[in-house]
């Protein structure tokens, strides 16, 4: 690990003065950044520890929920309002990592964790366009079981590993970002960039900016929502496929629906096409499958994960069928 200076800014404004400098990195729980520093992938010269800034979780005047960026993942999942009104978010967070890591990880840090694969972390033996732009990608023809089938490029096929982010994408979460110019708001579905030919650039956050909070708008589907994660072992593993979904049915037809996928794309993947297919239709198995097909029509499975489109279709259909219940 390279020498690094550690600072603990007392306010968001003080954090901003630190983040603009070259080599500076914001530090949340450190569960991803400290690991990558030890592996020599990340080499910051300054760590601005923002994990002591706002961790407030409170209802907004408009009927939504505001979550401070420094709130711990475990605190969000255990919060009574999240458990009661946003079950897909509580369940998604609880599906991620381990209890120890959820106690450490912040909400802002979870979104800022690197979009990555095993080749990215293998500094000794693997080529990676994300770690070393232009060097090539060993995952394309390598072990790519866990990699992306949607939104990837010929330069990078890594997935964003967050479970929490998948639920936030489905919930239309808005990310509030502070800079010296004030606050700007970015929808979570647009926060993570697709890799294109610059897989080293992962998010919309610019140097000199800080995520201060995540806002969940009021939602007609959040209360009847779920998150299901399919993985190689029952717990403490990254998703092969995950599905966050919320459903509102009225008079036998889908009145509103939100769907997002994890484990299949370089960002939490909001299934806008699938949602469009379902609106106004009776919530039947056939409709769910047709919606999944619409979302997957551009999918590009790899040598090691040709099973993924089918797994997405089945998982999505199962989750929505369960949510539809007797309305089906």
């Amino acid at each position: 690990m390279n020498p690094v200076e550690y600072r603990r800014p007392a306010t968001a404004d003080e954090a901003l003065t630190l983040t603009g400098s070259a080599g500076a990195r914001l530090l949340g729980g450190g569960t991803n950044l400290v690991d990558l520093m030890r592996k020599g992938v990340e080499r910051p010269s300054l760590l601005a520890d923002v994990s002591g800034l706002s961790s407030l979780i409170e209802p907004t005047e408009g009927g939504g929920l505001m979550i401070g960026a420094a709130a711990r993942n475990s605190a969000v999942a255990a919060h009574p309002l999240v458990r009661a009104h946003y079950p897909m978010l509580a369940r998604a967070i609880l599906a991620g990592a381990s209890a120890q890591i959820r106690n450490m990880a912040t909400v802002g840090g979870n979104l800022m964790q690197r979009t990555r694969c095993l080749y990215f972390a293998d500094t000794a033996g693997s080529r990676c366009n994300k770690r070393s732009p232009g060097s090539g990608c060993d995952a394309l023809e390598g072990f790519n079981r866990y990699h992306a089938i949607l939104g990837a490029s010929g330069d990078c096929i890594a997935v964003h590993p967050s479970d929490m982010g998948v639920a936030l994408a489905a919930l239309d979460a808005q990310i509030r970002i502070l800079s010296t110019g004030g606050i700007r708001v970015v929808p979570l579905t647009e926060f993570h960039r697709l890799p294109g030919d610059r897989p080293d650039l992962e998010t919309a956050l610019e140097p000199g900016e800080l995520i201060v909070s995540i806002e969940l708008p009021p939602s007609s589907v959040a209360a009847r929502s779920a998150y299901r994660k399919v993985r190689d072992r029952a717990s403490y593993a990254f998703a092969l496929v995950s599905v966050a979904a919320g459903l509102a049915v009225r008079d036998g037809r889908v009145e509103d629906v939100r769907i997002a996928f994890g484990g299949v794309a370089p960002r939490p993947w909001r299934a806008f096409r699938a949602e469009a297919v379902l609106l106004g239709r009776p919530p039947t198995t056939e409709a769910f499958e047709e919606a999944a097909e619409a979302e997957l029509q551009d999918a590009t499975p790899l040598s090691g994960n040709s099973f993924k489109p089918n797994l997405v279709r089945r998982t999505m259909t199962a989750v929505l069928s369960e949510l539809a219940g007797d309305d089906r």
Partner: protein
Amino acid sequence: MAIRINGAEVEAPEDARVSLLDLLRERVHLTGTKVGCNQGACGACTVLVDGERVLSCLTLAAQVDGRSVTTIEGLAEAEALHPLQAAFIDHDGFQCGYCTPGQICAAAAMLAEVAAGAPSYVTADLTAERVPLTREEIRERMSGNLCRCGAHNGIVDAILQVAAERAA
């Protein structure tokens, strides 16, 4: 500021690269906390910070300046065994013992989380105030601690015993 480790104050290291794990083992010579993978995958380095379980390998010592750390050496009173330590012996909750300090620290915090009503991924009713502590719940909640010897069944038995003692 200082780091309070098992009740004793220790100065945070000058070098920000020092992990909490290395501080504990190499500088304070509390070697009960173990180095397993050193990359957040195994749970052998689990300690409590302000009562919550964390991975000391992925925590920089500087991050816990001003906070309170409890390791396996500080879990019990004086020479007595902590109830979880006794229960792990009763139920053969280990073979080689390398993962055991992390398992026991994690279990201690896990029982507190359950007592506070925190749900897990397998909890059917997320809004329930009291979560029934089944084997399935324990396995899910302890999934961050791996045991290469395969003593997981004994570990679950040991935790169930302590939970039952506390409920009695």
